[in-house]
């Protein structure tokens, strides 16, 4: 990236059908490796800015540093692994694929997720999984305020403390099928954790239909 223009880099990657690629000197650049649509293996050596690996489809993107806001936003499939921390709204609106953050993710992690799986080895910030529709959010550390506010059918698994639950988000029973999903995700994310240590949270489904008594929830 010290010599290549961002547009040239992204259009080169977008034109590939496979292969291994290494991006050096990302220097916090925005929108790196976005819109990939083939099973490439891309390694970004260092830290990135906003929207890294956005709209990803099939590619395996590995960032050795930290990422700015909006990593893997609207991911369709493939995987994005971040060795460091992720800033706000990691994995927002993702439809599929796997996002792994080995450090911490900050606020609004998985906001409006629509099928993506997100595994955070550290903690997540406030308003995470807000309006999350489907998929799984796994947190090995703690969760901040208002986890799962206005949640639909996404499953949230947290091993540590939850500071507070958002409107309509409740703790739910961990059934064998959930332990199975969790064990698979932990294994795929390279996380050495026992599924039985996690608690599951989900939607109480009380906000699905308008009921005037719920006006006070907001």
């Amino acid at each position, binding site marked *: 990236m010290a010599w290549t223009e961002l547009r040239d880099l992204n259009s080169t990657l977008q034109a590939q059908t496979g292969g291994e690629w290494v991006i050096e000197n990302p*220097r*916090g*650049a*925005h929108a790196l490796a976005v819109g990939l649509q083939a099973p490439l293996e891309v390694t970004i050596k*260092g*830290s*990135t*800015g*906003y929207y890294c690996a956005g709209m990803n489809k099939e590619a395996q993107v590995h960032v050795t*540093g*930290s990422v*700015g*806001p909006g990593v893997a936003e609207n991911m369709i499939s493939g995987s994005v692994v971040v060795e*460091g*921390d992720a*800033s*706000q709204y990691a994995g927002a609106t993702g439809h599929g694929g796997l996002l792994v953050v080995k450090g*911490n993710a*900050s*606020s609004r992690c998985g906001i409006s997720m629509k099928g993506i799986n997100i595994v955070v080895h550290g903690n997540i*910030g*406030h308003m995470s999984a807000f309006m999350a529709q489907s998929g799984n959010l796994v947190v090995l550390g703690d969760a901040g305020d208002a986890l799962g506010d206005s949640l639909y059918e996404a499953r949230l698994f947290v091993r540590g403390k939850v500071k507070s639950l958002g409107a309509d988000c409740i703790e739910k029973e961990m059934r064998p099928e959930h332990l199975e999903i969790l064990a698979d995700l932990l294994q795929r994310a390279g996380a050495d954790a026992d599924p039985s240590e996690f608690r599951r949270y989900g939607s109480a489904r009380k906000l699905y239909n308008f009921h005037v008594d719920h006006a006070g929830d907001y």
Partner: protein
Amino acid sequence: MCGIVGLFLKKDDLRPRLGDLLTDMLISMTDRGPDSAGIAIYGDESQGLKMTIQSDTPDEAFKGLEDNLNALLGAPVRMRVVDTHAVLSLPEGSEAEVRAYMSEKGIRVMGAGQSMEIFKEVGLPKDVASRFGIRQMAGSHGIGHTRMATESAVTTLGAHPFSTDDDQCLVHNGSLSNHNRMRRELARKGFVPQTQNDTEVAACYISSRLAEGANLGEALEGTLEDLDGFFTFVVGTKNGFGVVRDPIACKPAVMAETDSYVAFGSEYRAFANLPGIEDARIWEPEPATVYFWER
């Protein structure tokens, strides 16, 4: 948007490079704020008082100023002109008299103190930094700002940092919603903002709290109670450097720390040229949490 940068050296080895490093940080944030830019730098302490002044017509305004101040104060005054700004070295205890004189002559006072110098102008960060020779400046810490104007006009006085007391300054990304009420409260306490800018109200707030005896950490805690709106503040004092974000924390912030320094940036890009950044501890400051360092 706006971009903020800050660099606080924990050791003296990087002192000669402070201006150079801060300039790179500032220029990297140009996309976030191309309207104006400014920097406050804490350099060598002077024996007396340093005062940074500004005029849109410096040739006229600064002509003979040194001699006039010598005569006014009956003590030696030195003046270093830097583009539209000038840094005055004044005898101790002369601040009020000199401020009154500047006000009469229509010359703006950007800030004063024992070690702080402050330079800000309308224009691209790279041009502003080069006009003031920021790269050549040495010091212990500094903060900078690139502005995308929202709350008040694009003018020199609307640029950040804002300094509202000796050796204190503040930069801000965000917008305050209760600044008019706070402005009246602070004015009653004797801290009168000079512009319509919401950020200056925050700077006055910090100054008022410090004047009441709060330490930097307590003053920053107070912003969470008393100021309403979106904000990421970075504050400099003579010996300190502090950061605070509002509880919603939608304005971006990232920090890096090594054995040599603590750095703040609106984005990671601001850190790309810092020495040893590859091995720095990098984290995002938590909402409603005060961070500060003093030396």
